[in-house]
């Protein structure tokens, strides 16, 4: 799937969910009209966006929180799947954009995709999430399927993990700054807490 098309579908079905993006998905998300409950986690500590999302989901149980990360980011914080499943937030959806590479650094393959090439065994992040105890997991490989499932995955009782197979971007792949982080997080926190 094309990353931008996947994100456009997410943008179309999203209503009042808190939505965190990072790295490549954060770069592309900035092409859409911003929403007050968007938080582009750039600059980030790689692999921590889903953990920020978990904290928000715990603090704001009446809101749906959707955290987006890449497969490289998930590999960097694989234990977060266990942490999330242990907390078991019903209001949490994790979307993993799996392109098999570290896209923003130029497309180097991840250790997980190296395993796929070496022994022909794909690391199943959705299966991993299921084994960890996520309530609902899916791997989605076509845009049609994603368009059919997206709304449900944002509404189902969590924790939900959907792994979306996307093609790596080979042009304009760098991280894009959404602006000054301290000011943005203050504004985001105020929005969350005022209307939460």
């Amino acid at each position, binding site marked *: 799937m094309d990353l931008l098309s996947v994100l456009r579908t997410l943008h179309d079905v999203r209503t009042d969910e808190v939505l965190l993006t990072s790295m490549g998905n954060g770069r592309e998300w900035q092409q859409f009209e911003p929403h007050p409950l968007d938080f582009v986690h750039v600059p980030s500590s*790689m692999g921590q966006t889903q953990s920020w999302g978990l904290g928000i989901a715990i603090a704001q149980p009446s809101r749906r929180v959707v955290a987006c990360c890449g497969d490289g980011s998930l590999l960097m914080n694989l234990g977060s799947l266990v942490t999330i499943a242990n907390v078991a937030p019903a209001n949490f959806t994790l979307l993993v954009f799996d392109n098999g590479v570290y896209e923003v650094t130029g497309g180097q393959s991840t250790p997980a995709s190296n395993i796929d090439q070496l022994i022909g065994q794909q690391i199943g992040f959705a299966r991993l999430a299921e084994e960890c105890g996520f309530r609902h997991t899916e791997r989605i490989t076509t845009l049609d399927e994603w368009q059919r499932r997206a709304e449900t995955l944002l509404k189902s009782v969590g924790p939900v993990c959907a792994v979306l197979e996307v093609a790596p971007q080979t042009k304009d792949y760098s991280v894009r700054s959404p602006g000054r982080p301290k000011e943005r*997080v203050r504004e985001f926190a105020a929005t969350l807490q005022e209307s939460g």
Partner: protein
Amino acid sequence: MYNADEFVQELLTVGVSHIVSVPDSTLGEWYPAMQQSDELSLIQVCREGEAWAVAAGLHVGGASPVVLIQCTGLFESGDALRNAIHDYGLPLFGIIGYRSYLNQSSLPGDTARIFTEPILDAWQLNTQLIDTPEKKPLLAEHYRTCRTNGHAGIALIAEGRA
């Protein structure tokens, strides 16, 4: 240094809502008291970097978390705390167990003590060392000062064993 009930009471007194933690042999002894408290939520994470990130989300969402980890976990978690505290300016508070500080013969050759305070300095964290029973009230005092000033802070709690 602290017994479990005393530690929990300190956190309740200052208004902590969530403890995000990886245990060590001292901090872990406080877990049952934290888990029994109706007013505190203990969130266990798998690695210390996660602790700062979960605490960041909690803070942004309006909660009052503390991170409770050993100094070795502080070493592991540097980039996550840098991002939350320095990039985003979040006034997170950490309670760090200072491994073997009170009994340095318990782990011969362990270098945790050599690096703990220089690393806290390097991360520009406002740190209060609590290494005697007389200093125990400084935990609440330091937490309140950091909250009032909107700064991140660390209480570094001396431990007697590994």
